[in-house]
């Protein structure tokens, strides 16, 4: 046997990140492996473990207390969309780098929101009329409003747009851009997919339920200003039954999930369907998701997608007309989709007795959580409270259960937030949407308590107010 080769041996092989001061007498040789590997380990750990690591010694405290690590943590826990949106809005204020660690801490400890009234009261301007069960979305830097129901139980078919850009707190200048297309309706859903809106279903004032799909696209012309064009989507499969007051949300930029609603003959549905759109958004294919157990039939509930992978269903009114407060989660993408109910006891939550609701809004906010606002209870009492739902502690169905006990998991699930500043009326069947960073929520319309008449089928009072809900942060 001839003499063999010998691999070069080094004491600090493999990428040698960290530069001078990397080799360290404190700790076993493993702590000298490339800094990148330690960072990879940290990004697999929950926050308390990351901070425990920082408390081991000075060198690791310095490693952990770096804003570039915390930007990765924010990206991991809040989703890349929020982080990118925060960074791009920061470019305008010319700061070097956002203080990510301080931001993470602030967002985790938020307990209140601040409200500002944005309704332009100048009599000159034409404003969208008061309405409920409309759709409101933030897309392409604009706020888009469509349809809804108004006085006399009539439907509306107008589309309104207001450019927001980066100046979230200025008074809005609504522009009416369309009328008649899509046909008038209320109780429809409209979700954002990339730069487009996808509208589905709804009920018109003859009581006809729909199951058509419309795709809307905003364009900003230099001379023509803002326009929005709607076109009917070609559906190439069996479609779900026509319905209104269902729930929908978009997942990533090509899928839409819907659940339940009120179908033909006023029957409440409990089915789950996924719509997949083609790349050019010209046609779509529906697929029903049949799993057991799944959320029971209901209407006026919400579906919200957190971080592009988990869908949360909450509340609504069930078959027996009862108002619900159950929470269900769907983890995507999984090879076998399954609804999982998250059980919790109302008495264990401070003020939890006010949780059951229908006609509320559930919007994803900065921090990977849901902001739930308004709605009404089984006595038709309208609400004005803000709740934050946090499901980050709940492991996905494929993850091995950790040592967290159920009390620990559920302890931080529900938190009632304080509202400071402007105090809007209690309302239900309003709509809310957030900007990409999740810091600013717009709320428009809904039904509020009438002052002159008692609440009854002819005594509904529709609201036309627009207000802003802000998560107050010090950047």
């Amino acid at each position, binding site marked *: *046997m001839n003499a063999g080769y010998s691999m070069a041996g080094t004491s600090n092989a493999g990428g040698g990140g960290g530069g001078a001061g990397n080799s360290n007498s404190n*700790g*076993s040789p493993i702590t000298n492996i490339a800094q990148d*590997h330690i960072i990879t380990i940290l990004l697999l*750990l929950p926050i308390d*473990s990351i901070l425990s690591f920082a408390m081991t*010694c000075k060198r690791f405290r310095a490693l952990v207390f770096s804003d570039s690590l915390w930007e990765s943590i924010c990206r991991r826990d809040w989703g890349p969309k929020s982080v990118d949106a925060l960074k791009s809005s920061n470019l305008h204020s010319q700061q070097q780098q956002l203080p990510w660690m301080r931001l993470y801490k602030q967002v985790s400890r938020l307990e209140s929101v601040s409200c500002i009234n944005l309704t332009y009261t100048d009599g000159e301007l034409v404003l969208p009329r008061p309405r409920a069960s409309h759709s409101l979305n933030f897309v392409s830097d604009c706020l888009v409003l469509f349809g809804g129901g108004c006085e006399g139980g009539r439907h509306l078919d107008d589309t309104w747009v207001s450019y927001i850009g980066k100046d979230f707190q200025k008074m809005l200048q609504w522009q009416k851009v369309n009328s008649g297309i899509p046909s008038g309706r209320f109780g429809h859903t409209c979700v954002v997919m990339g730069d487009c809106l996808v509208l589905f279903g709804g009920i018109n004032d003859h009581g006809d339920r729909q199951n058509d799909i419309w795709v809307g696209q905003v364009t900003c012309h230099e001379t023509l200003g803002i326009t929005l064009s709607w076109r009917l989507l070609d559906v190439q499969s069996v479609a779900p039954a026509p319905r209104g007051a269902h729930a929908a949300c978009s997942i990533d930029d090509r899928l839409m999930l819907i659940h339940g609603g009120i179908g033909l003959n006023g029957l409440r549905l409990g089915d789950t369907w996924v719509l997949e759109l083609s790349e050019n958004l010209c046609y779509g294919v529906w697929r029903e998701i049949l799993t057991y157990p799944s959320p029971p039939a209901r209407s006026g509930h919400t579906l919200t997608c957190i971080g592009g992978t988990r869908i949360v269903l909450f509340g609504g009114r069930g078959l027996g007309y009862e108002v619900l407060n159950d929470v269900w989660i769907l983890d995507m993408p999984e*090879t076998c989709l399954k609804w999982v109910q998250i059980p919790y006891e109302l008495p264990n939550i401070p003020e939890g007795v006010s949780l059951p609701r229908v006609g509320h809004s559930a919007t994803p906010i900065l921090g990977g959580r849901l902001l739930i606002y308004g709605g009404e209870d089984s006595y038709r009492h309208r609400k004005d409270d803000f709740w934050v739902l946090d499901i980050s502690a709940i492991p996905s169905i494929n993850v091995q259960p950790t040592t967290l*006990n159920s009390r620990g998991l559920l302890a931080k699930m529900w938190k009632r937030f304080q509202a400071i500043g402007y105090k809007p009326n209690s309302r239900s069947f309003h709509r809310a949407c957030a900007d990409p960073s999740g810091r600013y929520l717009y709320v428009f319309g809904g039904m509020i308590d009438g002052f002159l008449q008692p609440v009854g089928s002819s005594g509904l009072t529709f609201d036309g107010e627009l207000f802003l809900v802000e998560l107050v942060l010090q950047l």
Partner: protein
Amino acid sequence: MADDGVNTKVEAVSKATTETIELRTEDGGVFDVDKPVAMEFLILKSFYEDEGRVFDKTSIRLPNVKQLELSKVIEYCTRALEFGAKSAAAAGDKDAERMVRQEREGFEAEFVDELSNEMLKELILAVNFLDIKEMLDFLIRSVANRIRNRSVAYVRQFFDIENDFTPQEEDQIHQENAWAFEGVDAD
């Protein structure tokens, strides 16, 4: 082949006679490793491919690797290649894919369960040196699993770190970080 260390013949990945390469560890171990497995070690792969050397049965000495670690590395990489092949064969069949995945998860869980903290750390150093990305990712995940939700003392002990904070500094950093520990049970 004369040798004073352990001479291990690794089972061939395929039934046909595969080319093998001889690896010598720093503590005298000698291993006959199948070429596909050895090429998972990027340090070897670039040695042959980048340098344009002919793959012949010359012996290679690995100065940073001991025989216990190398045998574990060979075990993992051999199985990883098998799972890769099974996965490719099962492509398109959801049930078969799930079965392969579960089988792999089972193997990995058992593999890491048998490793002491010391061994886990030694393996990381070896795999880091040999430059095997997939196995390194697996080992790093395993380290994260071991220190997740553990106390500061445990993490120090795991990494052999000395506490160089003064008691006041420790108190202060404890207070600064208290916000992240609300609602977490003590380790």
